């Protein structure tokens, strides 16, 4: 009896020892795995941080613009034009319109560069030696339009002196911000030596000062006047596409998922459809662009470069994402809830719309917003449907020509004036990232809010 007892005891001690000897290895395995996991996170975060630091470092300077404060004299000597026609002097509205149009044409034909040059010279130290061509490189080319528009709006300015803020040229901004190496010789500088000297003088005497670059948000793209190039057109184009994607992809995607998951009989056909939808989600986006060009533009004759086509293409791209996410969410609804509804005598449709969809709504919403955000960052398909055209207007309808934020980034990235557009590109990236962060934030906020309510 004691013998068996001691053998059992012995066996138990041996077993414990065996377990103990393996423990070290087990703990080590665990520690290694944890270390690897941590390293993976550090690496991933490192890359993200690198991206952000780089973009922010490059982009933030682009949010300041160099303003040129000019005292403009609407000198009658330079502006030889008849007084603006007065409405009262004409018998009919049509006659007045014709005369007014003629006057505006006359105003436009005047050499406004002379006015700009005179204003610049007035700000320069007396007797500063610089020729007309050189001094005009300091102001952005659209400065003359700004000044002309002031005059068209108020013809009584003739002979008066007015303070006007215009933008310094992109080259001047480069010089001021140090985007270009100051030690380079004249041959490699965009601006002549006198112009560079005058710019420095202007900065010293306060004629040029830096301010927040509202122009990025309020202006459309521009090639002739790079300093005034802005994102408004691209932003509105993106908004139109977002609207189209939301209006089309969300209802179609959710309805398709609900039908497949809740109503369709399980058969070989539904399996086939499911496989195809999953594959569709993995189709390269450029293929969707090709499809858009072939179907929407070539066959359906929708306008080229229009947000309607972009929106349709992105809808096609987003649909599989929304369908898959919605099906996943529906699949996750507990059978107890379905049984409860059916057991109460709810029809299948009532079960879906009264109980299943409300419960899954937060996750469907989140997935949808993320899908849309993903689509809005898409560039490749838009290139193929003409949305990389240079468009210098805000699209007022979805069939107007437009571009989109990511495409604008692509376009600026390719601009010849590297020194000026590299920061601009980074700034545009920051704006796009901000839009994405806002969308994601909305998704997170809505999700937590709706889940709390449920």
């Amino acid at each position, binding site marked *: 009896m004691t013998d068996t007892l001691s053998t059992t005891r012995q066996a138990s001690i041996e077993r414990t020892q065996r377990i103990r000897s393996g423990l070290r290895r087990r703990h080590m395995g665990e520690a290694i795995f944890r270390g690897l996991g941590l390293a993976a996170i550090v690496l991933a975060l490192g890359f993200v941080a690198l991206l952000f630091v780089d973009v922010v470092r490059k982009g933030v300077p682009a949010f300041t613009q160099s303003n040129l404060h000019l005292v403009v004299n609407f000198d009658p000597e330079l502006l030889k034009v008849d007084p603006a026609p007065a409405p009262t002097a004409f018998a009919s509205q049509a006659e007045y319109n014709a005369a007014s149009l003629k006057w505006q044409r006359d105003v436009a034909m005047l050499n406004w560069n002379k006015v700009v040059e005179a204003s610049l010279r007035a700000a320069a130290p007396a007797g500063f030696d610089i020729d007309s061509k050189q001094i005009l490189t300091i102001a952005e080319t659209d400065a003359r339009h700004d000044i002309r528009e002031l005059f068209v709006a108020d013809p009584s300015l003739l002979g008066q002196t007015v303070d006007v803020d215009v933008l310094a040229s992109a080259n001047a901004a480069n010089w001021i911000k140090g985007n270009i190496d100051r030690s380079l010789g004249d041959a490699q500088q965009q601006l002549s030596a006198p112009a560079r000297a005058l710019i420095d003088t202007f900065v010293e005497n306060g004629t040029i000062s830096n301010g927040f670059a509202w122009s990025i948000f309020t202006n459309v793209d521009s090639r002739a006047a790079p300093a005034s190039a802005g994102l408004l057109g691209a932003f509105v184009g993106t908004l139109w596409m977002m609207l189209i994607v939301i209006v089309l992809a969300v209802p179609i995607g959710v309805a398709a998922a609900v039908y497949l998951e809740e109503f369709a009989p399980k058969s070989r056909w539904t399996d086939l459809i499911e496989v195809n939808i999953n594959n569709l989600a993995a189709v390269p986006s450029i293929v969707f662009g090709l499809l858009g060009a072939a179907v929407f533009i070539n066959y359906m004759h929708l306008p080229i470069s229009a947000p309607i086509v972009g929106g349709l293409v992105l809808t096609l791209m987003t649909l599989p994402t929304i369908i898959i996410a919605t099906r996943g969410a529906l699949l996750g609804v507990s059978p*107890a*809830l379905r*049984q409860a509804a059916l057991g109460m*005598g*709810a029809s299948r449709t009532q079960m879906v719309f009264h109980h299943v969809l409300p419960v899954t709504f937060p996750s469907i919403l989140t997935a949808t917003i993320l899908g849309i955000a993903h689509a809005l960052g898409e560039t490749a398909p838009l290139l193929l449907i003409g949305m990389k055209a240079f468009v210098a207007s805000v699209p007022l309808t979805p069939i107007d020509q437009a571009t989109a934020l990511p495409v604008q980034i692509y376009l600026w990235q390719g601009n010849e004036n590297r020194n000026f557009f590299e920061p601009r590109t980074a700034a545009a990236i920051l704006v796009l990232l901000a839009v994405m962060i806002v969308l994601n934030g909305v998704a997170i906020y809505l999700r937590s809010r709706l889940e709390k309510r449920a």
Partner: protein
Amino acid sequence: MDMVAGKVKMTQQSVKSAMNPTDMLERPIRLTARDVTVHYGAKQALYGISIDIPDRAVTSFIGPSGCGKSTFLRCINRMNDTIEGAKVGGTILLDGEDIYDPALDVVELRARIGMVFQKPNPFPKSIYENVAYGPRIHGLARNKTDMDEIVISSLRKAGLFEEVKDRLNEPGTGLSGGQQQRLCIARAIAVGPEVILMDEPCSALDPIATAIIEELIDELRENYTIVIVTHSMQQAARVSQKTAFFHLGNLIEEGVTEDIFTNPVNKQTQDYIMGRIG
């Protein structure tokens, strides 16, 4: 603690004295099942079940896990229709009407035959909305006052009103397990069913909540035909007047509860009741 124990005891006593066996047998028959079979795909789950279920009494189905008692219960309100690949054969009559008649709308059937599930499954909505849902989809309330009345009386009948009257707008999922189950019973009652099916309604509850539900079942018997599936033989003995024993998809024996528990005819029933199988 003492009070609770007293309550449990009282429940048992009140149930025991409920109805005498001969009385039970004279009750009119509400539900009749003849040769009911169920296949899940190639697998047969039920073999020719025939049973009569008396009006305004509690009938319990007992048997070991997987014996087909829940499957049969789910045939009675056609919940098996919702399972892919399930095929039901034979006939089930509710007041002489075939419930598998293609002309009969399953929505109407489920309004007449309510169901309470194993795990309390209130809707993730307010207590009020939980109870009001059935009457709303079936169009039973003409106006808000009507609806309030239905909700309150249903909660009262389920013995829950006093506990929740101050928080009708709070989510039903915030209640305790036992309260949730009573809410589910109130929800079923609100539609005014004739039959209530209960699929192991107490298996997820603690003994105290169980005792309260059992007492409730006993009260509901006055007005409803109740069929209850239970794992617990004690529960079947306490609450039911008629008991049916299922084993491996067959109905082995049925009869007045007292008879089944005191002198079962079949050997398998005997073994199960004595705890030798199951």
